[in-house]
């Protein structure tokens, strides 16, 4: 292969990345809200009681399944949140924050916190999940477009 061919090959890869970014880089607001809702339900249910947590788990799993199915249908691709690349640190940060929220939810459940504070924690989970989702997509778009 000639060096000039290598440059052309790299340009063709960038062209494919740019097309992929156009396809998946713009995530609709409702999609971010769905992720936020999933985390709010997960954290909120843990804070309420173990029974509510157990009853909510199938709902959470179903929501995840339907979200993945919707992504595949809408984009024609599926991008795993744990993918290698610039987005991975964002994912790990979200996991770390959610672990902290799970611990906070368990503390609330075991120490008789008010319903209002548990709802507040669920709202925090929703907000943080949405922020991470927006950031994750922004980082993905930047990675694909090289911007």
């Amino acid at each position, binding site marked *: 292969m000639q060096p000039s061919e290598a440059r052309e090959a790299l340009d063709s890869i960038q062209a494919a990345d740019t097309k*992929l970014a156009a396809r998946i880089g713009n995530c609709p607001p409702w999609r971010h809200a769905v992720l936020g809702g999933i985390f709010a339900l997960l954290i909120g249910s843990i804070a309420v009681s173990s029974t509510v947590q157990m009853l909510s788990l199938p709902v959470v799993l179903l929501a995840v399944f339907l979200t993945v199915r919707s992504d595949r249908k809408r984009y024609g*691709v599926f991008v795993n949140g744990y*993918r290698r690349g610039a987005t991975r640190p964002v994912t790990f940060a979200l996991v770390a924050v959610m672990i902290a929220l799970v611990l906070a939810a368990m503390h609330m459940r075991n120490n008789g916190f008010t319903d209002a504070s548990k709802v507040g924690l669920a709202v925090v989970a929703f907000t943080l999940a949405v922020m991470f989702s927006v950031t994750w997509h922004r980082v993905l778009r930047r990675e694909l477009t090289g911007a």
Partner: protein
Amino acid sequence: MDISDIDIALHAPARLQIAAVLARVSDAEFATLKDITGVADSVLSKHLAALVDAGYVKLRKAARDGRQRTWASLTAKGRKAFAAHMAALKKLAAIAEEAAIAAE
């Protein structure tokens, strides 16, 4: 990594683009790959078959809207091969740039 890592299986432009897209995602539908590479169905099928033969891609069928759709994903071997190929391309392109600068 060196320029001997240039992979013949990934040399064809459309094949390289297929691998590039699959390297960024978990999997992609046939129609998506066709849209991004801009090649005809039969050409895309041939390239995917070649990548499957090389052990770089695996295909699966999934029903959607009453039709069977083909989804492609890179294998671990494919991801490794693509990464090595990319590194070799960048090295080769850098050699070209250095030569161009030296010639000025």
